[in-house]
């Protein structure tokens, strides 16, 4: 079944909102210089929202027969009848109030097929051969996905959203597993990825680990590489909603009201989202099958325009669905599925060259909240901590556990490098993020980790 058929069938069953999706994906994994597992998948799915006098019922399912659409509509209707009135009830958007369809959403929908592996496999095979020949061990994961969603509402809205995403991560270790480095890359297609280039950079970095140094816990000047920066700013973004601030539950709560308008970060910090960014294009309208502080089922079809969340270090916006905005005097601000932290022209090499003494941190791992109200996080450095002295990397350093807040990190950011598509290792490789390397003063490494 096509998304169009799913949407028309669902609306024909009296549903207020129907989302039909066709998706596919493929992947393979590497370990110890060999391929381990792989997979290809295809799916058609439907999600419906039933509205019964302000009460909401939601149901979703994978679909292989048209009769299933009527079944899930029946389920959604039954749940709506058993529910009290929704606190976020609003009139559904009409065609003129909703987002405008994008001109470029035409032609075949993006798909991931086994033959798409072709352009990358020779290159990956070469990487594994080089790793074996060098007496090293290579590990990794490659994946590509393609999807097309069609949103239909009983008020006549029809919007298509497409998404195409690919990523590759490689870990290179010495044969005794005693030293380890990692790099991740994100693109829209497998063909955008460059395994051999990644391997060259990893080999250089593994060379840096030939001299290893032990440093104690404490406060350090650090340069967070883009992956590490992206994990920090994405976690910050998760709390950037008006409801949590209004209720006093998040770091965005001020003494009276929210912290919008406050200089929360260093003046160089700018965070923004743009669904039409060519390198990280995502659907530009709300698709929601479950209300939360981020979105409301009543806002389906609402345009997600470009937004500047933070500018000049000042918090500019918080995510806010329509009903919360109406009831609490905020501007309506839908979330967007990508995030960019602005950078400068400075390369990472230039930042290293101008460093007297600092730690270079490649990626972060196992990040969890310690104090949600202060957004204090704990986590670890992983697969690349290097000591820079007098403009040069002089060796690798043990891993650390850190206890830090993204707000504090962005307050103490004293230099920002070139922003690039980044692989958020902790948050997940399926999110589009652009992030620069950043120099942060007084980054707190709470203890040493023995892990390699």
């Amino acid at each position, binding site marked *: 079944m096509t998304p169009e058929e799913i949407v028309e069938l669902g609306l024909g069953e009296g549903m207020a909102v129907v989302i039909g999706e066709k998706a596919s994906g493929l992947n393979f994994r590497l370990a110890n210089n060999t391929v381990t597992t792989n997979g290809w998948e295809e799916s058609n799915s439907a999600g419906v929202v039933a509205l019964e006098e302000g009460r909401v019922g939601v149901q979703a399912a994978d679909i292989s027969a048209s009769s299933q659409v009527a079944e899930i509509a029946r389920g959604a209707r039954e749940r709506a009848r058993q529910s009290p009135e929704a606190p976020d009830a609003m009139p559904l958007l009409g065609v003129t109030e909703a987002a405008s369809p994008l001109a470029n959403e035409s032609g075949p929908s993006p798909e991931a097929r086994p033959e798409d*592996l072709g352009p990358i496999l020779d290159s990956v095979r070469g990487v594994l051969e080089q790793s074996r020949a060098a007496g090293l061990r290579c590990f990794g994961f490659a994946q590509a996905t393609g999807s097309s969603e069609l949103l239909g509402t009983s008020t006549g809205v029809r919007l298509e959203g497409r998404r195409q995403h690919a990523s590759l991560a490689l870990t290179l270790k010495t044969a005794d597993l005693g030293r380890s480095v990692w790099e991740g890359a994100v693109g829209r297609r497998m063909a955008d990825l460059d395994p051999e280039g990644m391997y060259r950079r990893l080999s250089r970095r593994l060379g840096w680990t030939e001299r290893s140094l032990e440093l104690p816990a404490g406060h350090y000047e650090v340069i967070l590489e883009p992956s590490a920066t992206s994990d920090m700013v994405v976690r910050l973004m998760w709390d950037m909603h008006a409801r949590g601030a209004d209720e006093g539950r998040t770091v965005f709560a001020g003494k009276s009201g929210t912290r919008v308008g406050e200089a929360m970060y260093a003046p160089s910090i700018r965070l923004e989202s743009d669904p039409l960014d060519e390198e990280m294009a995502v659907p530009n309208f709300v698709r929601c099958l479950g209300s939360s502080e981020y979105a409301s089922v009543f806002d389906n079809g609402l345009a997600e325009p470009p937004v500047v969340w933070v500018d000049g270090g000042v918090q500019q916006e918080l995510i806010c669905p329509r009903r919360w905005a109406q009831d609490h005097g905020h501007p309506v601000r839908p979330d967007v599925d990508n995030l960019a932290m602005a950078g400068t022209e400075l390369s990472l090499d230039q930042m290293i060259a101008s460093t007297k003494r600092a730690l270079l941190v490649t990626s972060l791992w196992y990040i969890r909240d310690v104090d949600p109200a202060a957004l204090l996080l704990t986590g670890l450095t992983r697969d690349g901590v290097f000591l820079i002295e007098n403009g040069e990397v002089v060796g690798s350093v043990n891993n650390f556990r850190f206890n830090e807040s993204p707000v504090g990190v962005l307050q103490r950011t004293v230099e920002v490098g070139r922003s690039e598509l980044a692989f958020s290792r902790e948050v997940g490789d399926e999110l589009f993020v652009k992030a620069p390397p950043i120099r942060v003063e007084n980054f707190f490494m709470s203890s040493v980790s023995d892990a390699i």
Partner: protein
Amino acid sequence: MTEIDPGFLELPLDQLADAALGAIARCQGVSYGDIRVHRDRIQGIHVREHDLISLSESEPLGFGVRLVLDGSWGFAASSDLTESGVARAVGAAAEMARLLRPLLEERVELAPEPSHQASWVAEVELNPFQVDAERKVNFMLDVTGRCLEAGAKFAEFYCLQVQENRFFVSTEGSRLTQQRVRLHPVMEAGLVDEKGSGLVETMRSTARPVARGWEYVEAHGFPSEAEEMVGWLQEKLAAPSVDPGPYDLVIDPSNLWLTIHESVAHGTELDRALGYEANYAGTTFATPDQVGSLRYGSPRMHVTGDRLEPHGLATVGFDDEGVAAQRWDIIKDGILVGYQLNRQMAQKFRLPRSNGCAFSDSWSHLPLQRMPNVSLQPDPDRDTTLVDLFAGVEEGIYIVGDKSWSIDQQRYNFQFTGQRFYRIHKGQLAGQLRDVAYQSRTPDFWGRLEALGGISAWQLHGAFNCGKGEPGQVAPVSHGCPPALFRQVNVLNARKEGKP
């Protein structure tokens, strides 16, 4: 007696299996194949204060085909439950195996397993999908209402309910149909210090995720816990902030299960030990060459793996490659003695049989070696109580409930917090403390285990969301344990840690 959902049995399971086995048989070079039809029913209810925020149900349904062609895995999955959908998936699985064959250095081989033909159903009293949503929502709204009446500023209640059905057929002759049900009720209340300190404290119920029905939610005692929790929160807001340093810790099962999960259960997965997760979830310090010699912890430490524990979240009749459920030792007398295995890992480790840890969270994902129920056994000699454990502490902390957790990629350095922390002074509880986090290194921590609670104090806790694998998969898993006494563990003040 619980029966398998007729709605699942009405799917064209036999036709799909026949189509898959036929198509696999026609593929040149295939030495093994299976098909797994997998349907979940998932219902999520989220209540905040006096409002229902969302009530939604989803039904992921599809099949995955797995084959070994010329020594290479091929996996393909589809939501198209037709014979043509199966044929397309078998073709894609074979194509994936062929395309990736040139990258393969080590052929896939599987440890033997007898073929099984069976139907297995986990018993529940009240299947949550047979309970009106209205009854569930009203119950949850009553609980959050009680929190607010007692003085909470925020009150939330989530309940995730899952019914999982699987049908598995392999080229070796296994034919298995299974059903299990689980739910996870999470009730949380919060307070803001009205004296202007800006402190926010939240606290979560110690209700556990369980492989039980709705009867568990109604019997847990949420209404009274809601009111108690507000009192605990008020006490916690006024409690002294902990002075960092080494303390004797008595850790409640509601907290210790997570430390077991992270530092023991993940650390004893053979696929991690062999590097299969090195790019993502990580490896482990517990390497295969140390089986029989690695001192994981104190001699009191006896840890088992199983897929049999009644109401365990990892309990099944058969795993996702048709291996019958088992129980075995992982750590005995403090020494590493075993691992978690699937058929491929068992073969690599030259063991005669897998211990049944293959699991896939979805029709669209390849089964991986995933965690069974991993449990710390109670004191075998006496039925030690919590009070007995407190009595052995001059100055320490009693930790209840899990909250924040983090551990490094080799399962050494960890940091955990909790829901409530009580000072223990001269063997007695002496009021709450705030801002406690304990940080340690796995073998050091378990080496400090001095005493275990007895069988009466043993509890089964767990998680719905254990993450591993690429593409990422989440698995439900239980961990049983008694309360336990650990000597001189490093305690941090979490709030001070955040100050530059």
